């Protein structure tokens, strides 16, 4: 294989971080930030298609995939510490510049990294993640209720986090073409969510999601000021965000160098996408 994918582990801040790496190291770097409750594994199909031209690096966050799963005493399961570990990871890897690919939780992790070190960011690609309040539609009402009063909604949240049906729906959405989705995607995630201690970690982290909503104005202001190259990819069968999210993202998060593309897929991206034909900063 010309550019195989390597599965490597490194230690950052006392935590083991698994990452996938492929492609020539002297090529432009794409840093892939995954969503919930997935891992760098979600990018596997894209690695095969892009590793001939780009240096691809996809870490698993602490508490996800095959990275360390520290308990709450060792690690604060919130977006700030995760972004900070990811920043340390990029520096340990010697990545001075990168294009950020941000899906779902990758958005709040990546925006924090971009605002902390804007000079490192060559372009942003966001896929099914929001940076604006209107993007969180009606199905976020119960989640907002959890943020407002955690004890009253903790049990319902946990039931939903552990549900295989919900885990599957995140992949398939309302796509009628279910045969294109590999069932091991949600089987693997379901096993991950049901591992000891995971529901505690993921509940803590989701409670912290409210800090993302509070930071949206700051991220939007940065987009306006920095005017990065900005590509928005949206799965039209995504049920995790409001169906109008893509349009409102276009309105609210526009930069002068924005492009938008609606994909015939759902929240994740199991179907081949023509990403390599789109412009990526070099």
């Amino acid at each position: 294989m010309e550019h195989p994918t390597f599965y490597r582990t490194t230690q950052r801040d006392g935590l083991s971080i698994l990452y996938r790496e492929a492609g020539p190291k002297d090529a432009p770097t794409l840093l892939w930030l995954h969503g919930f409750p997935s891992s760098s594994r979600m990018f596997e199909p894209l690695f095969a298609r892009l590793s001939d031209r780009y240096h691809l690096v996809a870490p698993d966050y602490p508490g996800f995939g095959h990275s360390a799963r520290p308990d709450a005493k060792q690690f604060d399961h919130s977006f700030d510490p995760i972004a900070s570990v990811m920043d340390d990871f990029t520096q340990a890897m010697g990545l001075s510049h990168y294009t950020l690919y941000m899906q779902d939780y990758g958005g709040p992790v990546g925006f924090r990294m971009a605002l902390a070190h804007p000079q490192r960011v060559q372009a942003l690609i966001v896929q099914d993640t929001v940076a604006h309040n209107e993007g969180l539609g009606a199905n976020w009402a119960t989640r907002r209720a959890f943020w407002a009063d955690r004890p009253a909604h903790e049990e319902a949240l946990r039931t939903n986090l552990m549900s295989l049906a919900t885990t599957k729906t995140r992949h398939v959405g309302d796509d009628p073409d279910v045969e294109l989705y590999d069932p091991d995607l949600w089987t693997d995630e379901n096993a991950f969510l049901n591992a000891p201690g995971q529901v505690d970690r993921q509940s803590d982290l989701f409670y912290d999601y409210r800090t993302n909503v509070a930071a949206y104005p700051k991220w939007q202001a940065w987009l306006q000021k920095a005017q990065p190259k900005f590509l928005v990819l949206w799965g039209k069968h995504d049920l995790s965000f409001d169906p109008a999210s893509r349009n409102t993202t276009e309105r609210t998060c526009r930069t002068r160098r924005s492009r938008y593309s609606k994909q015939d897929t759902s929240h994740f991206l199991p179907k081949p996408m023509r990403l390599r034909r789109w412009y990526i900063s070099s």
Partner: protein
Amino acid sequence: MTKYQYATVDGDKIFYREAGPKTAPTILLLHGFPTSSHMFRNLIPALSDPYHVVAPDLPGFGFSDAPDRKRFRYTFEHVAEVIDSFTQAIGLDAYAIYLFDYGAPVGLRLAWAHPERVTALISQNGNAYEEGLSQSWDPIQKYWKEPTAENRTALREFLKPETTKWQYLHGVQDASLVAPEAYELDSALLARPGNDEIQLDLFLDYASNVALYPKFQEYFRTKRPSLLAVWGKNDPFFLPPGAEAFKRDNPAAEVHFYDTGHFALETHVQEIGSAIRDFLSRKLTRQSSAA
């Protein structure tokens, strides 16, 4: 693009991956223990340009149904019958078979029953000779000789997540090439309630495969199917002499070794994919022009 589908055989669902043009020659990929068609996720795109590729999950494995042992006999004979019916249910008249691990006794039963359907055989650590069995089989062979509860319990070692991970990493030169989700997924599926007893039943019945080796060898000698062996030479279960032995019964057999372990596709999918394409481009063309 790979499609993820189900066929119904005798009331049970059989999951399968399918890719490539349906009018092209078919390659039937048969997986091993304790995995599923997931092991072919990277081989399928390497073959599906010229070929029609079909990879079912055996009953009790992957995303196929795992019917209760009270109503479904977990024997290799029965599993092969189900896979045979599966090939008929989806309309496969002729196919090359990729034999790996458990896929070998299943696929060779199909070939023995319907030699006219088989266009070629590809054995990747798919054994048919006693000299191919390593000492790792000792506790299983002990259970065959004395099928006691104690000897059955001892085999639970093979069902542990650390054993599955070991199966993927043993004999691999660069462990960073092995995707961790492969053994994670296998372990998640092995941990399903009742799957342990299903797997233990199959361990017991594996003796029936060894008993059939002379018949399989007779089939190689008399029917002379085109055979390619692509073998991870550090496999802790199936030894290189098992690959070399194919040439004894069929001198035209082609044997390639790779410096890797049991799950050779995890590290050598491009090399093995190329060897298969080269082999089939020679063998399938010759057969069709002779016909």
